[in-house]
């Protein structure tokens, strides 16, 4: 873990009215990042807002790293106004990473909306660093509606098996991405060795975790949640240990957990 006071915006894209893509220069950070790592970014210079915001690393090469985020509140709104060459104070890379798929396993990525960045990074990581065959990945992305499709721009370029669901059926599978997964499972995946990787809204990951447990399929969840410190000392990011009266720290023991370790 490192403390990096200055990263510089080198690219900015607006994918949707509320979805932004930023690329930063910051070698010491970018060179160490692995999938599911996140940064704690200070979005403004002053005390408003007072906390840093946790953001997954969407991709990192040796020199630059990227994030994709939705504007949901004040912090992400301020971040969306970042300008080229603007410097940000960023701590990271923080957190653990996904377990690699074992031999012969298909890697099934189940992303809920803007939960895709860690899974995008992981997919590229598997392909680029581990020569993992593209066709052994299945990427499922759930969206609300068809107009959110630009969210998948980077994913489409990866040229891996990719399917979509929309809540309103306006594009791809009609239903939740967990339903899409179940459909695939019923049809084909249940005959294979698979490993699920997921990131998305809590409710979606809770559901997916239940499904995975009931099917006895290994499943890793990359959790989100408020993170005052991000470095393990405030105990604010607690997630319940399954079956024990105790908590993990998402920022320190996570953000990735096996579905059977946690109660969402």
């Amino acid at each position, binding site marked *: 873990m490192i403390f990096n006071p200055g990263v510089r915006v080198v690219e900015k894209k607006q994918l949707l009215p509320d979805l932004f893509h930023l690329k930063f220069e910051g070698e010491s950070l970018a060179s160490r990042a692995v999938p599911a790592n996140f940064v704690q970014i200070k979005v403004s210079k002053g005390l408003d807002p007072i906390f840093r915001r946790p953001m997954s690393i969407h991709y990192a090469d040796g020199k630059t790293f990227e994030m994709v985020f939705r504007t949901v509140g004040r912090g992400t709104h301020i971040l969306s106004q970042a300008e080229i060459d603007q410097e940000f104070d960023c701590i990271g890379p923080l957190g653990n990473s996904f377990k690699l798929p074992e031999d012969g396993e298909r890697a099934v990525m189940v992303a809920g909306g803007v939960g895709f960045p860690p899974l995008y990074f992981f997919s590229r990581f598997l392909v680029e660093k581990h020569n993992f065959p593209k066709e052994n990945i299945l990427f499922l992305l759930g969206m609300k509606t068809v107009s959110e499709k630009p969210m998948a721009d980077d994913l489409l370029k990866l040229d891996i098996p990719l399917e979509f669901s929309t809540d309103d059926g306006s594009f791809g599978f009609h239903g939740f991405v967990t339903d899409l997964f179940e459909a695939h499972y019923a049809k084909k995946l249940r005959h294979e060795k698979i490993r699920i990787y997921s990131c998305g809204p809590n409710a979606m990951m809770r559901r997916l975790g239940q499904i995975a447990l009931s099917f006895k399929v290994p499943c890793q969840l990359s959790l989100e949640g408020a993170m*005052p410190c991000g470095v393990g*000392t405030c105990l604010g990011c607690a997630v319940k240990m399954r079956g024990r009266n105790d908590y993990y720290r998402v920022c320190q023991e996570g953000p990735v957990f096996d579905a059977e370790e946690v109660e969402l």
Partner: protein
Amino acid sequence: MSIANLSIEICGIRFRNPILTASGTFGYGEEFNQIIDLSKLGGIVTKSITKHPRPGHPPPRTHETAAGMLNAIGLANVGVDKFIEEKIPFLKTLDTRIIVNVAGFSIEEYTYTVERLNDTDGIDMLEINISCPNVGADGLEFSSSVRRASELTTALKKISRYPLIIKLSPNVTSIAEIARAAEEGGADCLSLINTLVGMGVNHWTFKPILTNITGGLSGPAIKPVALAKVWQVYNAVKIPLIGIGGIMNHFDVAEFMIVGASLVQFGTANFINPDCTVKAAEGLTDYLKQTGISDISELIGKLGGNHEIQGKNFPACQGT
């Protein structure tokens, strides 16, 4: 001019500089050891330790507020046995002062933990967190009852091998009274303030934001309250004080020392800027140079500059 002296001695213990970390904001030092050079700090105060391990409250446990935060962690900690076994060995390797914060829900619990720590080396002082919700015979907690604060201090002073810091709560009518009770009970030092009781509400769901409903407010928002409380207590007791509350940088350190603190603790600031303590230590050197002060202890209680201002009658008028 030679480099100014930043070291401070209280209770016979010399601290490299007045900068400590506040309980509950720095874990047991392990995480920050990878981020900053802990030997640059005056000392570390551990998360509150209790007799038994505690998982803490169900989340959400924290909430961001205007220039501050609420927390209701629920005294989550590994318990004194595991603390001694797993955390003390690491703490011993550090080149800084170690203050262990102790919490409890009865005098017996506090006593148990302090006695266990008596058997342990590598500790410089104990800080007693008296703000836990133990409702005694008079319906008040240790931190808000003169009688109970004094009982607890007396009981612990009798047995403690280490100098005792009593950590005061601001949620009282007269913090000076509680401070005097602790002093009379034998406290070697007082630290203040713990957090202010506060709460947050979600206006869409109508639910309290914290599962525990109320929590403790900390951060820059409370600095003015903390300064006033330290000054009130400075005018009420003779033992040294540790100032806490919204401290972010070296100027804040100076302000707390001017109103009477000998040492200070950084809490919430560690979450915002993990290197705040180290930067503040550097900043203090510059500050002393700029003010022409050669020994930082000259700041302590110097409110009013050359015209020291003695305690006016408290509780103070807000004067609206």
